[in-house]
């Protein structure tokens, strides 16, 4: 295999790596938004639940969650025997806890006076959150979300261990096939850099620019 052929072989795994990262990011985004709003505006009981979720999933390693779902829950619920599905869920659950924290600090920066102004117009609490607080919190969260996507792209490599055929798995196949320890790992490392670095940098810049522009 020429180096070009090897590279192409590695790149063929990129769509799987990216789709796992993107789907788990979206799951985490939904969870993060819901739990952050609950932690700030929810009832006492719901706050406890959201707080517990955040604490647990920020403390347990992704791999442990993956094993727990795949080997543990998989015995009872066959759907968790699917490595791709289980990877997305595990990464999403952990990411949701991180994103909840990102949103909590973003909502904090939006400021109380915005909520008060929304209330004074007669908007219900839900509409105030939906039309006034959330749009601003989303903009403020963009740089943090950029780092979160980068983290997910890297952490998606854990799914190789439970059997997903993604970039790390292709790297491993290549290592075995070429008996080269150096090229496959350096090449896949560079692919990870190319996937994460420009995106995170761009989102960070965009977020800061928008923040300045709107005076958030």
């Amino acid at each position, binding site marked *: 295999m020429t180096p070009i052929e090897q590279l192409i072989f590695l790149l063929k795994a990129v769509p799987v790596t990216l789709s796992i990262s993107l789907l788990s990011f979206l799951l985490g985004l939904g969870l993060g938004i819901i739990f952050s709003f609950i932690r700030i505006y929810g009832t006492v009981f719901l706050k406890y639940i959201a707080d517990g979720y955040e604490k647990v999933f920020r403390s347990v390693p992704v791999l442990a969650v993956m094993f727990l779902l795949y080997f543990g829950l998989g015995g009872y619920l066959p759907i968790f025997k699917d490595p791709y599905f289980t990877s997305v869920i595990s990464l999403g659950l952990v990411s949701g806890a991180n994103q909840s924290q990102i949103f909590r600090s973003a909502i904090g920066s939006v400021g109380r*006076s915005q909520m008060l*102004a929304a*209330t004074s*117009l007669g908007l219900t609490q839900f*509409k105030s959150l939906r039309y006034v607080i959330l749009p*601003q919190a989303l903009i403020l969260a963009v740089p943090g979300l950029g780092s979160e996507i980068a983290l997910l792209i890297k952490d998606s490599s854990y799914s190789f261990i439970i059997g997903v055929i993604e970039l790390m798995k292709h790297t491993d196949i290549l290592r075995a096939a070429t008996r080269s320890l150096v090229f496959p790992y350096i090449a896949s490392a560079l692919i990870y850099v190319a996937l994460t670095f420009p995106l995170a940098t761009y989102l960070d810049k965009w977020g800061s620019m928008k923040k300045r*522009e*709107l*005076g958030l």
Partner: protein
Amino acid sequence: MNVLECRDLTKIYGKVVAVKNVSLGIGKGQTKVIFGPSGSGKSTLLRCLGLLEKPTSGTIYFNGIDVYTTKQDLNKLRAKIGFVFQEPSLFRHLTALGNVVLGLKHVLGYSEDEARRKAMEALKLVKMEDWANYYPAQLSGGQQQRVGIARAIAMDPEIILFDEPTAALDVELKWEVISVMKDLADRGTTMLVATHELRFAKEVADEMIFMDQGEIIEIGTPEQFFRSPMTERARKFMAKLLG
């Protein structure tokens, strides 16, 4: 009957009594001015009247109906009570037009087109129609306050409460906001205004209310306050304001 009225309103935060046994009412078409040293409870009183804070005790009547004991839908009433804040409170992710449209659409249920038309009318009234597509960060403090006033009047409220709308503004910018408020008063808008702009009070107020340490100390016409306040505290404070 008064549009908005409170009886024996008291608001306590922890151990601090911010407002103590205040009773006052604003009739249709009236303009009343509240003034007094900072920390005298003006803001708290206005926020209670705007149904943004619940009083610790006392009663608030909107068009004669006891708001809290009859369990009214507070959001519906808030839509009828305009509120203009001291600090910049425009929604920063929306343009001037978007700020005015939001309540029309999502509280009063206007369609997008109707809401925009009505919002533009309100912006015209405060002479901000040329700035409709600018974001708050691109506007001066005075312009932001005028948009804030447009946002309140667009909802066709029965009364507008102003919480020191010019206090955070430079002197040059104050007057453009004051003149918009004067227009509103001249058009018969029912208004309760916390302000230290005595010229405004003199020209448009039906009544002035002097507050200190959470209590109403003196109520009178602007003439009375400018000629000779009855209480020593009001006299001293007037002297300070008039320099």
